[in-house]
């Protein structure tokens, strides 16, 4: 049969001949999506610069060891910090605006405890550098500096005036909050990295420091805030106990037993710790006297609540005036205060309410109104106006030069000091500050995160809690860890979920493993609609305006 090859007419022109991918629809756009690692608010708030979303994701994926290593890159004491940190990360957590924060601190403690249980070792470099570094003070700042320098391959010697390392961690925090075996375990592990520790070495004057400098390439001074101003006209009385001293005595096993009725003056952690410790030593009525309102108390809200649960009373807007003896009874005469104009720090100043006083019966008065640093030994060694480096190899950090009296701030100060020393010795290290804006809650696509409350922590019942110094808060369980880590938005941290790839109507986002960000936006096709950014669950894509 004849094929119709004798066709007379050519095939008409309306059959298509190709594909629309020849069109450059990228010319339509006025903005282009950029895959960008952006700081999470928790990370931004974390004093130690913790890569919180990173290790939480590792935790979520069951990579516990890796998570712990990420964590310890910035903080060698996760078990400690997981107990005592004031956790600004949780306050800033974007999830607060959705349902509840992610309990970062509990997760950190889980990893810290797990590492101690499994006896995981810290990652450090070999002793590869010829320079030796001296650290003065084995508190959190000093040990953090020692750790960071040791990680970078330096030989480090730590001089500590006391008999045991740990500084305030050891002497200032009661074991119901931080059990000593936990602290000792983490310090021991740190020292195992080859850090030399010399205890009982009291270095207090410039000459001591200068002498060190003859042996060491750099000296980091973190001797803390040792000066205790006390309470005017009260601290010489026999009923008076210094708060820090009180806590130190408890931890070293020779506690001063307070009377049945105790008044603690102050609003910080030491005040609350002292009040709760007094209960544990048998006191029956414990009152915290504070000049401002509850909201202004420097101690964490959670600890104040726990103290109240245990029976501690708060007497707010009050200041001590004098101790009076009335027969057999001691009373503390107190002045009523009110909040006045804000001071330079922005906190409202307590102002005396004229003619309004009252008395509280007591047996023991504990002063916990803070400490101050004594800077006299450092004169001539350090430029104390600026951070530390005066170009002479002396550096300082921690409570000695900072008013932020948080453990995590001290660890951060040690870390920063180590970096300064590192640079001082001629090595290069990038700034750890990120330029990108932190991810705001509105940039989170909550469709991908079902609403779910945060974990419930188990606490020792109030009835038995104050019998002794047993730890109040229990660690969390693995299923809680999994559930909680799944709640993390992982703000600004791409998890390669491929949503940007899947939701592009123009197939303009491609996976590309050769790129760090993992994706390539095809300039030729991307119309700049921003669907990829909208469907990024975690704000890791930003739309940047393009000028043409």
């Amino acid at each position, binding site marked *: 049969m004849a094929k119709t090859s004798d066709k007379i007419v050519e095939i008409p*022109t309306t059959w298509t001949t*190709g*594909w*629309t*991918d020849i069109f450059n*629809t990228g010319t339509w756009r006025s903005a282009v999506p950029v895959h960008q690692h952006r700081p999470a608010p928790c990370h931004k708030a974390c004093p130690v610069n913790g890569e919180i979303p990173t290790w939480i994701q590792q935790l979520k994926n069951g990579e516990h060891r890796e998570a712990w290593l990420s964590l310890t890159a910035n903080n060698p004491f996760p078990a400690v910090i997981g107990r005592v940190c004031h956790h600004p990360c949780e306050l800033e957590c974007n999830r607060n605006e959705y349902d509840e924060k992610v309990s970062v601190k509990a997760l950190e403690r889980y990893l810290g405890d797990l590492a101690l249980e499994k006896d995981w070792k810290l990652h450090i470099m070999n002793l590869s550098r010829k320079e030796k570094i001296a650290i003065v003070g084995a508190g959190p700042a000093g040990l953090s500096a020692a750790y960071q320098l040791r990680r970078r391959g330096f030989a480090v010697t730590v001089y500590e005036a006391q008999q045991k390392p740990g500084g305030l961690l050891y002497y200032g925090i009661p074991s119901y909050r931080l059990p000593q075996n936990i602290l000792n375990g983490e310090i021991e592990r740190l020292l195992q990295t080859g850090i030399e520790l010399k205890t009982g070495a009291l270095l207090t004057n410039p000459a001591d420091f200068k002498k060190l400098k003859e042996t060491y390439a750099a000296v980091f001074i973190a001797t803390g805030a040792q000066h205790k101003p006390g309470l005017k006209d009260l601290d010489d009385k026999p009923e008076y106990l210094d708060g820090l001293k009180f806590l130190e005595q408890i931890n070293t096993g020779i506690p001063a037993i307070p009377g049945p009725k105790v008044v603690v003056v102050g609003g910080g952690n030491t005040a609350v710790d002292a009040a709760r410790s007094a209960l544990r030593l048998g006191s029956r009525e414990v009152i915290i006297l504070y000049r401002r309102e509850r909201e202004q108390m420097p101690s964490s809200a959670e600890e104040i609540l726990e103290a109240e649960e245990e029976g501690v009373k708060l007497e707010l807007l009050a200041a001590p005036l004098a101790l009076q003896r009335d027969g057999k009874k001691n009373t503390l005469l107190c002045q009523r205060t009110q909040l006045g104009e804000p001071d330079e720090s922005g906190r409202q100043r307590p102002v005396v309410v004229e003619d309004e006083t009252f008395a509280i019966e007591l047996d023991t008065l504990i002063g916990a109104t803070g400490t101050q640093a004594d800077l006299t030994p450092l004169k001539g060694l350090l430029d104390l106006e600026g951070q530390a480096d005066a170009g002479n190899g002396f550096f300082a950090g921690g409570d000695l030069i900072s008013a932020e009296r948080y453990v995590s701030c001290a660890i951060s100060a040690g870390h920063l000091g180590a970096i300064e020393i590192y640079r001082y010795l001629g090595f290069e290290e990038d700034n750890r500050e990120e330029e990108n804006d932190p991810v705001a809650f509105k940039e989170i696509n909550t469709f991908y995160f079902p609403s779910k409350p945060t974990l419930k922590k188990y606490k020792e019942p109030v009835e038995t809690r104050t019998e002794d110094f047993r730890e109040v808060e229990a660690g969390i369980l693995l299923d809680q860890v999994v559930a909680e880590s799944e709640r993390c938005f992982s703000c600004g941290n791409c998890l390669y979920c491929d949503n940007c790839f899947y939701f592009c*109507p123009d197939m*303009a986002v491609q996976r590309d493993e050769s790129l760090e960000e993992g994706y390539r936006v095809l300039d030729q096709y991307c119309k700049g*609609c921003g669907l990829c950014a909208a*469907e990024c669950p975690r704000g890791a894509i930003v739309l940047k305006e393009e000028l043409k």
Partner: protein
Amino acid sequence: MENDKHYDICEENIFSSGHQACPGCGQALAFRYVLNTLGPDTIAVVPPSCAAIISGPQPYSSMRIPVYQTTLESSAASASGIKRALKSKGKDHIQAIAIAGDGGTYDIGFQALSSAAERGEDIIYFCMDNEGYMNTGTQKSSSTPHYAYTTSTPGGKTTMKKNLVEIMAAHQIPYVATATVGYLDDLVNKIKKAKEIKGTRLINILTPCLDGWGLTDSSAVGISRLAVTSGIFPLYEVENGTRYTLNYGADGTPVSEYLKVQRRYRHLQEEQINEIQAEVDLQYSILKRKIACFA
């Protein structure tokens, strides 16, 4: 819902970049999943619509399958012609599909669609439902919802949206479903399911029109999800006219959440919003009863 999903679709792009859909177009996204899920052994008909624009200007096509652009009212008949021709040639494994808009489906193409369904034509019909004649600049269709502004209903549409799915279910065809670009997993599952069934199958895909509804370029997916969670557009299937399955439904989100972000509803008074809420509640309860009835 799982945090991160991966979709089991054809990795080679049957839908090509460089197409002429508006930036962020919901329908273009639906195209991607319809075509890539069906794969290359497919022939499509497209009537005049946004879909026809997305298909590409001669001599280029955005669809890497053969496509014929038919008249507005003929999609189902045209797809029938292709399928019968394929059948007569022994190429029954090739799917014949129609991709039409709501105007071409609910309105002018309805007669042909109804007949194809009654004849049991072995085609998959995709209605890209953007609730109006959007390609001609936003006029009302019988899919336009109550009170929505269009240029032909400038005071808001006075009647309700036609219930296409129920009408098609009444034809007792093997498969009718709703889907949307807000739930790609569901969309892909439904296309795969439809592909395995013989006979007339229809998937009505809610594909938000950013310009026609008055939305920002990046909102097609989010608004689709609100349509579902507010109960306005539940995602469900009807098999053989009787077996109802709800895939994603209302979660208590008030309809006002859905309405307030769209310019086409900007003129609504509170009582009108309440009225819409009552209508949606009623329809949703009817749907739930059907599901229960045939369970």
